Structures are given as C-alpha cells and as structure tokens.
C-alpha cells in the first residue's frame, strides 16, 4: 500500500468532526459573551456615568481579569473544550492563552521560563496584530489623508 492509498484508508476510518454542531455551539456561546459584554457596558454607562469609550476599556479589563482568574482556577480549559471556538473571543481567548503559558512556565524561572514563554501562544496575535495595524494605518493615511 503506498502513501496515497494509506491516507485514503486513514480518512475513511477517521471519525468526522461534528462541524455544524460545533459551529452552532460556538455561535451561541460567543454571542452570549458578547451580549453579557453589552449589558456590562450599559450598566457602566448608566450606573457609573462613564463615557462609552471608557466603558469599553473597563469591560476589556474586566473580561481579561475574569478569563485569567478562571484559567488559574482551572475551569476555563474545560469550558473551552466543551464550548469549542465560542470562548475564543479576542479578549478572553488572549487572556487565557497568556495566563495558561504563565502558569506552565513559572517554575522554570522568571526570565528563562515565565518571561520567555508567556507569549508563546499570544505572540503571533501581538506581532501580526501590530503589523496589520501598521499596514492598515498606512492605507488609512493614503486614502483618507
């Protein structure tokens, strides 16, 4: 049996992922978190008298804190594996990836462990986020002055 035939055999016997179910689940979980976020922003605006812009900053801080705390207490990873991509929202997912790496490497030293590995997963988001921001910034200047 050559490589191609074997790959076909493997594909035939590999159970299919329930993509539609996962997508629907992720849609509702992600949507629910977005909804909670909007509720918090509204509360911050009405009860605490914050400007819209400030309310979103506080929301962001709150989301990062909650996601990191839940990761530290060991809940978040179980929820992510159940909710599929729904909990991978930029803010919570990012916080989770940084906290999980920090937890993992803290025993290997502050520089050689925690410092050099804390952005192991989130590093790509930061790097390509910055490059993307830079490029779109240039495009913005070109087209909108």
């Amino acid at each position, binding site marked *: 049996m050559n490589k191609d035939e074997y790959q076909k*055999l493997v594909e035939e016997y590999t*159970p299919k992922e329930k993509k539609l179910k996962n997508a629907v689940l992720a849609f509702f979980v992600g949507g629910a978190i977005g909804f909670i976020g909007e509720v918090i922003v509204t509360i911050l605006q009405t009860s605490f008298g914050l400007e819209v812009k400030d309310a979103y900053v506080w929301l962001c801080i709150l989301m990062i804190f909650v996601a990191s705390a839940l990761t530290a207490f060991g809940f978040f990873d179980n929820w992510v594996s159940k909710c599929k991509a729904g909990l991978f929202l930029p803010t919570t997912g990012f916080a989770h990836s940084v906290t999980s790496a920090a937890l993992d490497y803290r025993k290997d030293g502050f520089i050689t462990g925690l410092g050099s590995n804390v952005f192991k997963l989130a590093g790509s988001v930061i790097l390509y986020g910055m490059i993307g921001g830079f490029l779109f910034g240039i495009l913005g200047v070109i087209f909108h002055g």
Partner: protein
Amino acid sequence: MASKKINHVYIKDAFSLAGPVEKDGSIKDYDIVIDDYYYRTKTFEQAEIKMQKVVIDNILHRHHLVHSDIDLLVSGDLSNQISVSSYTASNYPFPFLGVYSACASFVESLIVASEMMESKKKANVLCVTSSHNLSAEKQFRFPIEYGSPKPNTTTFTATGAVSVLLTKEVSNIRIEGYTIGSVVDLGCKDASHMGAVMAPAVAKVLMNHLLDFQRNVDDYDLILTGDLGCVGSKILNEYVRRTYGIKMKNHLDAGCNLYLKSQEETYAGASGPVALPLYLFNKVLKQKKWKKILIIGCGSLHNPFFVNQKLSIPSIAHAVSLEVNL
C-alpha cells in the same frame, strides 16, 4: 538478527503506579494510585521522577532485594533527553541504559534487557517506564491549562510508572522471543492522530515477526498493541486485512481499553509508553485467559520542531512474545 528466540528470561514481577484519570478507568487494582499530578513535589517533571523512584523502591522491597542485587536498570520515558529516567537513575548505584522509541520504549527495554541476560547464569534486571500527562502535554503540545478544542482522534497521555523485574529464575511469565521493528513513514503529518501514524509500523513488525518465527497470527491467543487508540486500532485491522489479507480476531489495544468510554476527556484512548505495561500487568495477565501473548509497543517518533516544519511523522514498533503459565 532482528528476531530472536529467548530461552531463559522470565518476568518475575511488576509494580504499577497510576494517575488520577487512570484510577477511574477500566482497571481498579493498581498497586499505587496518586490523586495529585504534582505528587507532593514542585513540578510535574519532578513528580514523574518520584513516580519512577517509588515503583523501583517498591519492587525491590517486595522481593527483599538490595541495591547490589540489581545488575542493570533499563528505562525510558517521554521527556526531552529522557531526563526523567536519568535523574531517577542518579539515585541508585545500578548500571543504567536509557532507551527511547517514544511509546515503544517499554518493549525496547524488555528486548535490550532480555538480550543481555540470555547468556548469563544469574541476573536481575529492572525495566522501568513512565509517562506523565501534563509534562508530556507541556512538551509536545500546548501549555497545560490552554484548553484548545481537540479532534476526536487525539489520544490522552497516560500518567503512571511501571517497574518490571526480569530474572533467570523460572516464573509464570517467560519472554519467548522478540522482533525489532523498522521505522515506517506513510506520510501522516497530524500529531493529533498518532494511531494512524503508528498502525503501519505495527503491521510491519507483526508481519516480520510472523515470517521470522514461521507462525500464523492465530498461533497467538492475544496480540496486545500499545497505544494505537480506538481509531488507530480500526485502521490497523483494516490495513492488515487489505495489505496482507489477514483478519486479526485476537487483537486488543491497551490504549483503547485503559479508560472507560464515559471518560470523554480521553478522546480516542490512552497513549504514552506506560499504557501498554499498565494494561498488560494489571488486566491481561491478571485475567489469566491468554497463554501466548504478543505485545507490540508502538511509538510516534516526532518532535514539535519537525511537525512545525511540516515533515511527515515516522513511527516504530517492537514486538515481544510472552508465554504465560496459567
């Protein structure tokens, strides 16, 4: 040369330690179970070293052996540079050989040990294997607390350690022969589908073994593979049927059977070098159902760098045949 009959090497005893998920699995009577992945140490790696020390000390204690009674220690694990085995060995005066063929390390250690013991009149050799779910996850995959969704084909690295005492004194389990496998690569690149990576290596060593010893697959009461997992087992059976026209009715996979189906976090079953000895010594041999057993340990020989470089994953499998006196 790759296959050889062994006449006078016996497995006297084994001592098993199992982790928190394994103790809720299909086997209930391990010698020791631990609830804590840290095992009262500071890190997972140190916990794994302690696990190996505990199984070595316990098997020595059980048979009233002192350090000078052991002629050789052969051990392997999944950590980088098999450091766990080396650090464990630094606590003992035994001559030490470290072996690595990923999850086939246990079978490799049996082969090395029995080959060296065969010509001796008297020898006591310890073969030790361990794996730790979290230290392996950290090394091969993502940080531990990072809960990325996993595909159904993923296997779950078993936590545990097993020490096996090989002697020249007659016991109920005899090592009857072995076949050293070759490295096989049929183009699989998915590190979360290791059953598919390893199945062709298992098939190859099985066929070489049967050919060299001039046996049929039915000459064995049981063919026990290491950690193909439930998906990999199906692929192996189909691959062997299509390629060699053989139907394997007497096949069991330790990885697929170590956990219960209700343990969803284990996906397609157990992996890790310790899966095979845990299942062999605590289930298969205790059931006293099978006389002639062929154990095939299989290992996916990847590391994260090569996977990231998009190279396909080579795999290996080694076989040892056991004769059990029921």
